[in-house]
């Protein structure tokens, strides 16, 4: 595939092309973090900002960096847009003898979403969510309605955070597939790769130049430097078996003693998809005629760290925090492989940064994998 150069000042034009056809969602600094929101114009990007991340640490600073994309990911991710934290799958109206159910249809005139400057880990996360919601025999029709028509503009990561380990999970720092356009920020411009017909089409009329071998070399060198900055490793080839062999490892209890069971890790994880649902009956409905009520089904993000997650009538399958932490980690790094053919972790590091006590999933895995002989 041919590679192109887009000069930095022409990024604006690409942005406008996108804006004409899509609702553009991209990084926006608010409340001291980089989140995702609708972008009105390019200047609202947190240009020149750096995010300092570590276990339980996040600081966003304007360091006046020359690069536009010198920050990486905050707690927010594409998950929120395709699999919203609160959904209303249907409303109901019920009398004793009749039940009416209505499921709202997505307004068709709404523009599809374009994700601007999505990171390779999040492109990978989106592919995983597709597996969960679209490749299951009974797919999630609401997810599909939003997913269809999404445009992905990816940006390769040259300034990984201390917590990033996409290199170890083989999802980054360079995006390999699943995008429409990808950008690598060079000193003078962006190296553009086209990932789809849609991507090619959006470039129509945007001034670009043919990339040279020197540009390609600059990109390779920058990505190599990025890789070498990521220090965490993951024994990918030992998964999932190394975890299955250590279901009773003493480390689980040690970690559980630190873990608060707060569920932050599951909320920020771009691939954690669990939900719970309940019926919401509003007071307005109850005011109606007796024996007739109405309301809506509410589907919310849930967390396997919550105590009631595995409760059934007369029992609870995971009361100890040890079991709940083990369940989470096993799902991410072992069960997922059996279920969907790939780990459920993309190495974005969010769970490390946003864990209030700084539990590091790679460190936990390493501790367990290291003691091969412990039962």
């Amino acid at each position, binding site marked *: 595939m041919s590679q192109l150069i887009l000069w930095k000042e022409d990024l604006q034009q690409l942005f406008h092309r996108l804006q004409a056809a899509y609702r553009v969602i991209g990084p926006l600094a608010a409340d001291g973090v980089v989140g995702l929101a609708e972008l009105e114009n390019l200047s609202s990007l947190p240009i020149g900002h750096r995010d300092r991340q570590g276990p339980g640490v996040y600081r966003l600073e304007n360091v006046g960096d020359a690069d536009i994309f010198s920050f990486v990911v905050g707690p927010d991710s594409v998950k929120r847009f395709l699999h919203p934290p609160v959904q209303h799958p249907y409303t109901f109206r019920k009398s004793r003898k009749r039940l009416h159910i209505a499921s709202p249809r997505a307004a068709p005139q709404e523009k599809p979403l374009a994700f601007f400057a999505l990171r390779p880990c999040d492109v990978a996360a989106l592919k995983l969510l597709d597996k969960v919601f679209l490749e*299951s025999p*009974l797919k999630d029709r609401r997810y599909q309605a939003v997913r269809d028509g999404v445009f992905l503009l990816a940006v390769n990561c040259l300034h990984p955070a201390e917590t990033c380990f996409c290199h170890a999970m083989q999802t980054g720092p360079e995006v390999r597939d699943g995008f429409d356009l990808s950008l690598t920020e060079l000193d003078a411009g962006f190296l553009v790769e086209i990932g789809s017909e849609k991507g090619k089409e959006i470039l129509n009329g945007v001034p670009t130049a043919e990339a040279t071998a020197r540009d390609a070399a600059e990109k390779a060198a920058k990505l190599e430097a990025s890789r070498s900055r990521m220090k965490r490793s993951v024994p990918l080839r030992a998964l999932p078996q190394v975890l299955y062999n250590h279901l009773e490892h003493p480390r689980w209890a040690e970690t559980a003693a630190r873990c608060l069971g707060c569920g932050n890790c599951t909320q920020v994880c771009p691939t954690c998809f669990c939900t719970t649902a309940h*019926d919401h009956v509003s007071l307005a409905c109850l005011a109606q005629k007796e024996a007739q009520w109405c309301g809506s089904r509410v589907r919310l993000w*849930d967390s*396997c760290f919550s105590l009631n997650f595995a*409760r059934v009538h007369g029992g609870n399958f995971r009361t100890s925090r040890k079991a709940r932490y083990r369940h989470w980690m096993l799902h991410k790094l072992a069960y997922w492989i059996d279920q969907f053919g790939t780990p459920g972790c993309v190495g974005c590091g969010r769970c490390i940064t946003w864990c209030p006590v700084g539990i590091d999933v790679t460190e936990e895995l390493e501790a367990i994998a290291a003691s091969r002989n412990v039962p």
Partner: protein
Amino acid sequence: MIHDPMIPFEATIRWIKKETRDTATYAMKIADRRIARAYRFQPGQFNMLSIPGIGEAPISISSAPEEEEILHTVRVAGDVTTQLSRLRPGDAVGMRGPFGTSWPLDEVEDRDLLIVAGGLGIAPLRSAIRRILHLARRRKTASCPTGKKFILYGAKTPKDILFRDEFPRYRSAFQVHLTVDKADPEESWKGEVGLIPTLMRHVSFNPLKSIVFLCGPEVMMQVFTKELTARGVPPEKIFVAMERNMNCGVGLCGHCLFGPVFVCKDGPIFRLSRIVDFWGVREI
């Protein structure tokens, strides 16, 4: 499924039969004709029944597919099941389904079949039993299993035995063995007292040429699968029905995970060999 599996459809209660002090069978009819016509299930599958405003619960179908009404046999447990027990014929509920795997009736062939139920576990098995009776009656044999057939069923007390009035009919095709954990003094129970494995004394079958359908409390199933494997029944031919918290029923909510399997879509009926690595692991 023509209908979005996440959205319930309306079903009407036709009749209710009280089975025991805390359990009743509800016959339901899907209101919308188009949905009713497209609705097909296999013995062992379940529906999500909902009482809008209260919630939803997974409930096995206890009737056979060839029967006109869809039956659910439900024990009062918490919110949804209590509210269900307050309804009357003619009342509407929500239904989604059918979901999950079914009893592999086509794997029975000429094997000896052991149907083993503990307590309410008889509900999803009743669907299989009645299907087999139906096939036996039609005697177009090809599809009717020909080996020995047993039903081993254990209940808490004689008063908790479900479908008691149907056992004479079951005996036309099955050897039926009952046991209770505790005999009721006033009811002059003459049968076995003890846990289900005690019934194995009465059963002579060929372990290498048999197939077992098992549904009941998890501890009971664990004890029983041990007994079966000790007798030489291969785990590939033991099928267990599992129970976990269920919220969506279609493998999207994560609540029912048991190790790497989703109990709602990969189960609830599993070949023991598939889940054997996690069978009995605490708090998995």
